[in-house]
């Protein structure tokens, strides 16, 4: 195998990866995973056990959001792909802005609550990913309705 054919093979694999989407049915699985995770978190609130359910539930919500985000629409055409890309870009930019301005909001909240808070504590990985995926999903639905 020469260098040119290796490069061609890699390019084809990258193209396949770029276009890969989960089947439409995974959207329902994603919703189900989110519902189960939320129930787990609620159960955790009422139990005296450690926060195992809450931790698993938090990551379950992320998994559910990823499944919904990666799954195809009923008809996945070029308009839908373009709207998805716009939604990902918007969600990324908004998440970065919110992460950067988080210390400011924490500072304002500490003044209002009259309670000292660590303004540079920042957002955790879960919050950032949750924010990004949620904004993506809601903005995509908004764009879909707008394009009708």
């Amino acid at each position, binding site marked *: 195998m020469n260098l040119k054919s290796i490069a061609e093979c890699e390019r084809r694999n990258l193209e396949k990866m770029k276009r890969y989407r989960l089947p439409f049915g995974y959207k329902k699985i994603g919703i189900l995973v989110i519902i189960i995770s939320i129930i787990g978190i609620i159960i955790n609130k009422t139990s005296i056990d450690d926060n195992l359910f809450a931790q698993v539930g938090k990551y379950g919500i992320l998994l559910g959001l990823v499944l919904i985000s990666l799954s195809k629409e*009923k*008809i996945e*055409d*070029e*308009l*839908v792909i*373009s709207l998805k890309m716009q939604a990902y870009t918007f969600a990324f930019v908004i998440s970065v802005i919110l992460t950067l301005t988080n210390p400011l909001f924490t500072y304002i909240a500490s003044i209002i609550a009259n309670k000292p808070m660590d303004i540079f504590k920042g957002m955790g990985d879960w919050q950032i990913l949750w924010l990004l995926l949620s904004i993506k999903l809601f903005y995509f639905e908004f764009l*879909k309705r707008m*394009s*009708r």
Partner: protein
Amino acid sequence: MKNSIKIERAIMGITQEELALKIGVSRQTISSIEKNRYIPSTLLALRLSQLFTKPVNAFFELEQEDEVLI
């Protein structure tokens, strides 16, 4: 860019749903193209051209702000 897809569709006597089915997209995409909210890819434009048996230029037209100054 403006287009006359709606007129071409009326000439053929087909609905948005039927046109969408023929070129393999959703009805929403046809509606967005007709309302000039979405510019289709070259592939889709060529599929429309094949279906209408007309060149792409016959139903897609550049507007003044789209034209490149040479």
